[in-house]
């Protein structure tokens, strides 16, 4: 049984798993610049490693219940694949740990970690309208 490492993050009461290979860095307290007139999925803009970074609300992207508070932690992640890969900040409530999930988790879109159901995120297709 092969496993792949995933970063587990908390979104309100739910837990989501992001493939660790796609995660560049977990950052707390990034200086956030809100952008009026932007869609509800955009938390704001920030600076990362000398480049501008758009920060999206992961819970909103996954269609989970709306939270009242602003995400406290930003997971800087590569979305998409190959030449089209871009670095985007994903706003979450907290980053928990890196855990090994079964290789099939991605295909299933979910997994069980410590008995709790976890939403497995496909970073290649995240944020792209179906």
């Amino acid at each position, binding site marked *: 049984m092969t496993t792949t490492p995933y970063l587990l993050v908390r979104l309100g009461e739910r837990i989501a798993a992001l493939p660790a290979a796609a995660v560049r860095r977990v950052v707390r307290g990034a200086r956030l*610049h*809100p*952008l*009026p*007139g*932007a*869609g509800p*999925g*955009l938390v704001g*803009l*920030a*600076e990362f490693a*000398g*480049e*501008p*970074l*758009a920060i*999206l609300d992961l819970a909103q992207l996954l269609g989970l219940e709306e939270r009242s508070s602003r995400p406290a932690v930003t997971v800087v992640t590569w*979305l*998409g694949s190959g030449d*089209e890969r*871009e670095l*985007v900040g994903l706003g979450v409530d907290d980053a928990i740990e890196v855990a090994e999930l079964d290789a099939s988790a991605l295909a299933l879109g979910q997994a069980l970690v410590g008995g709790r159901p976890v939403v497995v995120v496909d970073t290649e297709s995240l*944020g*792209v*309208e179906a």
Partner: protein
Amino acid sequence: MTAGFLIVRRAGALWGLPAAQVAGIERVERAERLEGAKQAGEDSATRRLELRLADGGSLAVDAVLTLAGELRVQPVSARLRRFLPAGSAGLALLAGEPVVLMAGKDEVFHV
């Protein structure tokens, strides 16, 4: 896109307009309604400066920061286009602060 951009502050954020689009800048007092404002109390603003655009239109801003000659621009991807305001063509940084660059003419500011 590397030609000069006029960097302005409007509704708390930094925006970049292609310099060629701007004909002139005037000082005015103009009250405006804002759409899509995320916080209460932000739905109207008194702007002090007005840009006269090359196409005859005008745009009120809070401040004009600079004319940036060379900016490193990150084009807005198809994915991010959904989340950024309509007309956003690229992102850049000015002294550590993110700037949203608007595309050429015929684009309308919605904020």
